[in-house]
């Protein structure tokens, strides 16, 4: 607007003058109190890292850790009776593989883990999805699910082993118990994230509830389910191992338990190494599945 500033009677004009004096004061204070900007050079463009530097540093870190442990054990800084040492663990591992039953034990634990993981996922997803169908049913069931979630399920292991015996079923049951709650709650979060406007849109084109479920609720929930798998695969492994601790005739968990009771520290470490490797393999597989699946959804995140 090019019109001159409105001139209103006295007080307003004085008010404007007063306020501009106030602004001038404030600006002077600002000037006085702000330190002058310090000249800093612009950050240099990041130099490209040599391609093998990071892997090399990782190997170095591993060598230092393992080597340090070996040296500390040999020089008596740590007591090899309690802590063992890498060379001994390696020798024990080789013997366990060639003469012992480590491979069979691994297969056993692996099967129990995968079975529990599969059952827990299917049941958990079914329970989570079922909450979509009735708000009342969901409201009634939710505290029970949360209570089961809060309960330390590993504490159930003795009962489970008593009831189901020392065979594989008790291990599968433990793995399932850990997976099922987490996946149910996770799936339910997915169900709750369904955009109500999408539901309305589908209803407006004449879709039945079953069609809304199939075309919107399930596809919306699937990414939640798939992201949950990375968490639950680790839980399944823990469940299976704890089941084996309590009572078993096979499995890596039983091997560790047995090694502990006979003070074979090296064998414990062999078991831990096997479990770590198993866990990493499972995690990598699930992660790869997740990436491929999410890419196929075309959901930009």
């Amino acid at each position, binding site marked *: 607007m090019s019109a001159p500033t409105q001139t209103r009677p006295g007080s307003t004009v004085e008010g404007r003058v007063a306020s501009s004096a106030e602004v001038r004061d404030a600006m002077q204070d600002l000037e006085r109190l702000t330190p002058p900007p310090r000249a800093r050079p612009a950050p240099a463009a990041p130099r490209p890292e040599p391609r093998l530097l990071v892997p090399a540093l990782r190997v170095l870190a591993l060598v230092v850790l393992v080597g340090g442990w070996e040296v500390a054990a040999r020089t008596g800084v740590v007591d090899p009776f309690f802590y063992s040492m890498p060379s001994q663990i390696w020798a024990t591992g080789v013997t366990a593989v060639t003469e012992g039953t480590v491979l069979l034990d691994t297969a056993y634990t692996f099967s129990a883990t995968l079975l529990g993981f599969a059952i827990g996922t299917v049941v958990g997803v079914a329970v989570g999805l079922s909450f979509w169908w009735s708000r009342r049913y969901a409201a009634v069931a939710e505290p029970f699910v949360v209570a089961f979630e809060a309960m330390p399920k590993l504490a159930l292991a003795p009962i489970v082993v008593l009831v189901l015996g020392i065979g594989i079923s008790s291990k599968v049951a433990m793995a399932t118990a850990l997976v099922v709650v987490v996946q149910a709650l996770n799936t339910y979060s997915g169900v709750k994230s369904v955009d109500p406007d999408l539901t309305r*849109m589908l209803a*407006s*084109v*004449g879709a039945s509830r079953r069609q809304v479920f199939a075309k919107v609720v399930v596809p919306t929930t699937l990414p939640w389910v798939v992201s949950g798998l990375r968490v639950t695969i680790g839980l399944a492994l823990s469940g299976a191992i704890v089941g084996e601790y309590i009572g078993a005739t096979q499995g890596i968990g039983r091997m560790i338990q047995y090694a502990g009771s006979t003070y074979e520290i090296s064998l414990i470490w062999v078991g831990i190494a096997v479990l770590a490797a198993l866990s990493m393999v499972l995690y990598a597989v699930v992660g790869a599945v997740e990436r491929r699946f999410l890419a196929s959804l075309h959901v930009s995140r």
Partner: protein
Amino acid sequence: MTGLAVEHLTRRFTTAEGGVVVALEDAVVDVPSGSFTSIIGPSGCGKSTLFSIIAGLDRPTGGRVLLDEEDCTGQQGRVGYMLQKDLLLPWRTVLANVVLGLEVAGVGRREREGIARRLLQHYGLGDFAGRYPAELSGGMRQRAALLRTILTNRQVLLLDEPFGALDAFTRAQMQEWLLDLWDDLGKTVLFVTHDIEEAVYLSDVVYVMSPRPGRVVGRLEIDLDRPRKPSVVTSRRFVELRAQALDLLDHAPAGRVAA
């Protein structure tokens, strides 16, 4: 051809504290068959409530919704319904999105995709049939959403601020596009917008609503010739009509409206 009539619709909600909110009071709207009718009004004037009731997603406390004299109050799936959000399913291609209504109705894949491809081609989305919504611009997404609504084969279309989230240029393009489409297909359209110019430019009749309680406070016949060119907005008659609409809105209780 089907006309839409809303007779004395009232919708009251009881709040959790036991109070009563009147979202819509005695609304009367008549949309003759094949006409383009708009509703303007500030936020909270009950436009969305009105649309939900017409679409059968909500039931009125009183009053009726008539499609060609037939009472269809509380019936879902009788009219096509489109929102400002495009609500395209991100995991489906444009083609798979626009056929949703036919899919739900049980029309076979080949038939429904045959129909959809021809419409997509004709209305400027032919090259996007295999793309996913995330790859499309806002305007293109709204086009897809509108074609999805068209493909439900309802004679009456409710468009709830369909261009509200678009920039001014895209919005102008979309208005042209919508008028073309309406001209070709002879649909009965009820259109909600915040934008007075948009309402006047597109419509045969504009209803003005006011909030708290939501009700219809005015009706304006738009007697501009069709087909309309964008330049019509500078004509004297257009400016007069716009002024009248603003006037009706100004006499309605407070609320923000974009002119």
